[in-house]
């Protein structure tokens, strides 16, 4: 077990990559606190972990709200005394060009995907400093490194996540706080299905297109979770400020 005795706070832990990571971290011995807006789905994951003999708790949280972020960090510290791992994973997507995008959608995507990382990190980092370090992992995207069609605000938000990651790595490396991000390619989650819907495309056709990459398939949430585990564990003790691309070769070049 690679995370024995660790406490991990995972945003967006009720579904997709966050759910798979919550399950994996718990199997690896971590106490997992899931912060998610969807309390019902979050509770299902918590129960699943408990049934498997792990420890997990749910805090209903809007990660774009400063008070909610403070509350989930406070209650985690009260219950478990520390936070070793912060996985800023909550994210949403709007598939639109700048012409089709409303200002409300711009603000919402930026708040959930980027501002949440700022709000949670500023609560968690002072405690990591006191306990001698920690690992912060942010979910960026392949589209945080390269542009994509009809994804203007998503690309803007994920590009911001990549550079926010590097800036935080520079600031907090001396305190032994490692900050890295993951750049997943298309992964079989609810978000992928919602993209097909937003674009008005048939799910099958959308998935066939998404699979067009060197490995010839989309990823599974578990595969992204294992990358998060690498970054969370001591196996990556010299890794900070890195964007770990996990995309089946999608960004390597055209097939």
């Amino acid at each position, binding site marked *: 077990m690679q995370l024995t005795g660790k406490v991990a706070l995972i945003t967006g832990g009720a579904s997709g990559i966050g759910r798979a990571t919550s399950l994996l971290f718990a199997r690896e011995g971590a106490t997992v606190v899931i912060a998610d807006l969807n309390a019902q789905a979050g509770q299902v994951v918590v129960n699943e972990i408990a049934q498997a003999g792990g420890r997990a708790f749910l805090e209903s949280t809007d990660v774009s709200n400063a008070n909610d972020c403070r509350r989930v960090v406070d209650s985690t510290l009260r219950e478990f005394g520390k936070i070793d791992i912060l996985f800023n994973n909550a994210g949403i997507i709007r598939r639109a060009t700048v012409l089709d995008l409303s200002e409300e959608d711009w603000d919402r995507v930026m708040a959930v995907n980027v501002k949440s990382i700022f709000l949670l990190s500023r609560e968690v980092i002072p405690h990591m400093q006191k306990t001698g370090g920690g690992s912060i992992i942010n979910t960026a995207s392949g589209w945080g490194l390269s542009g994509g069609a009809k994804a203007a605000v998503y690309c803007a938000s994920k590009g911001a996540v990549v550079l926010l990651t*590097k*800036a935080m*790595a*520079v*600031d*907090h*490396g*001396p305190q*032994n706080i*490692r900050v890295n991000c993951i750049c997943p*390619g298309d992964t079989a989650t609810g978000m992928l299905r919602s993209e097909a819907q937003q674009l008005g495309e048939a799910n099958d056709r959308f998935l066939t297109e998404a699979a067009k*990459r*060197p*490995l*010839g398939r989309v*990823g*599974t949430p578990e*595969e*992204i979770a*294992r*990358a998060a*585990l*690498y970054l969370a564990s001591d*196996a*990556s*003790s*010299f*890794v*900070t*400020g*890195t*964007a*770990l*691309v*996990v*995309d*089946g*070769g999608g*960004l*390597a*070049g*055209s*097939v």
Partner: protein
Amino acid sequence: MRLENKVALITGGTSGIGEAVADLFAREGAKVAITGRNESRGHAVTARILESGGQAIFLRTDVRKAAECKRAIDETLSSFGCLDILFNNAGIFFPQTALECSEEEWDLQIDTNLKGTFLMSKYALAPMIAQGSGVIINNSSGWGLVGGDKAVAYCASKGGVVLMTKAMAVDHGRQGIRVNCICPGDVDTPMLPEDAKLRGLDWKTYLAGCENRPMGRIGTPDEIAKAVLFLASDDSSFMTGAALVVDGGGTAD
């Protein structure tokens, strides 16, 4: 154990990062073939692995020579029956500007660091394609992503390694082969004091420069080995064509 029943070939496995990877892979259950040019060091590494219950062979190889690369792959296959993981790690470095680097020194660095990676991959791919799976990990460098002072041939070779990694990932993904590289920052290996000496810097001054990165220290060979293990194992099953930076934040700013 994460590499049980796997066969791994590690070039430049007689010291530094290669040696740490050989040790770690053997502990994780892999049968390891290591190559290098220094026979006595090579046998010392394999002897240590054998003593702790692992399986290892040393194959004296100059990765600049096609025939020797082919022989290393053939002997690994005949000793262990298959090849699952190739770690192209052999590398050399001379601190030189374009004005200081001779043509011979240019060729030596490019041929070892870049052409050696091509040659070993070329012969390793055939058995990997035949078995429908394989992992290739190339050792690039932070200086394969950003420029460094007095490092023209090294930077050129390591930049080449990053893009050859991506090109090979595109070519061989559909055959079940993943190709990734690591980009280490300064690591506590014999390469560092050699570099300090060639630059005419005393060790303390040189080391202080290396430690000037967000994490405030250089890496250990074992920390790089763990990144290579991640890329070699099924934990990275959706990763190909990636450059994994392991540098204590050195290239973050």
